């Protein structure tokens, strides 16, 4: 199975290592037509204003929302911002794939960036993982149908809606693969944890 990583700007290369580890093939996506060949997409961290500029320039919006109707998207940090419904900045045009509102840099400037160990609830299973927040966005509002996967001091920082996952932090910087696995090979998780017969 081949997963695409949107490679317009940001730490897209870091995601290839995680996909490798899961035995998934990956391609870097720079043109909308490349979405045709893939079974899932990652929108990596970077700057959402830059991503907006390049996604507009390359006509990615319609192609990506169409893609999202069929296949899963995982967004980290700027990727989460791009997947939101509402973002508090005029230069960012989000895709509206997750029914959430997002405050860019909600945790402050770089000096407030941090690492932490957080419990995450995924597929009825709780696991504590290391997380890295870099000038991270804050999820300020979630709609119905949005599943909360993790909170940091009462602030929601990881969500799932339908097949899509959005994270305020960077699992790719800590070698954490559970979100990639859940988004792109969900059956393997449920087969391991809950229903061994379903594999």
């Amino acid at each position, binding site marked *: 199975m081949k997963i695409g990583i949107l490679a317009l700007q940001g730490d897209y290369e870091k995601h290839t290592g995680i996909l490798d580890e899961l035995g998934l093939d990956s391609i870097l996506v*720079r043109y909308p037509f490349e979405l045709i060949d893939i079974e899932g997409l990652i929108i990596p961290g970077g700057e959402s204003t830059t991503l907006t500029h390049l996604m507009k320039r390359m006509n990615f919006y319609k192609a990506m929302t169409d893609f999202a109707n069929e296949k899963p998207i995982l967004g980290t940090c700027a990727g989460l911002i791009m997947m939101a419904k509402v973002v508090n900045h005029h*230069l960012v045009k989000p895709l509206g794939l997750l029914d959430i509102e997002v405050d860019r840099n909600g945790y402050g400037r770089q000096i407030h960036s941090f690492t932490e160990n957080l419990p995450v609830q995924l597929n009825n299973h709780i696991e504590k993982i290391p997380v890295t927040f870099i000038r991270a966005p804050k999820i300020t509002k979630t709609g119905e149908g949005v599943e909360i996967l993790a909170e940091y001091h009462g602030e929601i920082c990881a969500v799932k809606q339908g097949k899509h996952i959005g994270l305020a932090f960077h699992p790719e910087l800590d070698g954490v693969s559970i979100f990639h696995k859940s988004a792109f090979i969900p059956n393997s998780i449920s087969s391991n944890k809950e229903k061994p017969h379903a594999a």
Partner: protein
Amino acid sequence: MSKGQLEVKIGLAEMLKGGVIMDVMNPEQARIAEDAGAVAVMALERIPALIREEGGISRMSDPKMIQDIQKEVSIPVMAKVRIGHFAEAQILEALEVDFIDESEVLTPADEHNHIWKHDFKIPFVCGCRDLGEALRRIGEGAAMIRTKGEAGSGNIVEAVRHMRKVTGQIKELTVMNQDLLMARAKELGAPFSLVQQVAKLGKLPVPNFAAGGIATPADASLMMQLGAGTVFVGSGIFMSEDPSPRAKAIVEAVAYYDDPKKLSEISFGLKKAMDGLEISKIPDEERLQERGW
């Protein structure tokens, strides 16, 4: 929770990859940069080409000017300190700039010592001309390295020289036997543990960007193809005839650096680039890259 450790500093450098960091001198230029898709801005009172023209001592910018730029844009704001001037760096940390450039573009404050960057919670970027210089700065705590190039020259030749030198020296390390590395570390004047690490990784342990002389989309593409994680553009945008379209073009050129057809489209009809300088015409004492060691 932990803040300010090296991983978190390098984390921001990773996020800047493939995005353009633009020198700006006021909030209006910062606005143009952000609107054009810049990934960060470098706030400084005089861009290198003007420093060259006007001469005099160049220092850290006025905190008010930096703060005005921080208020204007939502992307990361970087600022420069003089080499070795840790008090300027402490002030920038108090201002909460996102990245500090300990830069040869400003007049050095210390001829022997660079800043001990591990003492700060804010990440630093430093310039280099070769692998030894890069590893000395990383040893002091730099979270990002850039080529020095020749700032304010509009001439790419020095950035190319420095990038080729660094990547060539890295490649040499990867094929060396373990028993040769200590002697090589001595020759490079670099910390041995970092030399070992680079020999194993085949790359620097922090992102390696290009700076110093980038003036066109093709320059940006060249540096990306030579292995830069991304580019800093100093005088190249705001000393050109029409900054906004050029800024956008360079942003796009970095994203599509290996697509010549797209690059020709991007470069089409841009007005005049900045006037450049022949490196041989710059007197030795005015060559900014010679500052620092």
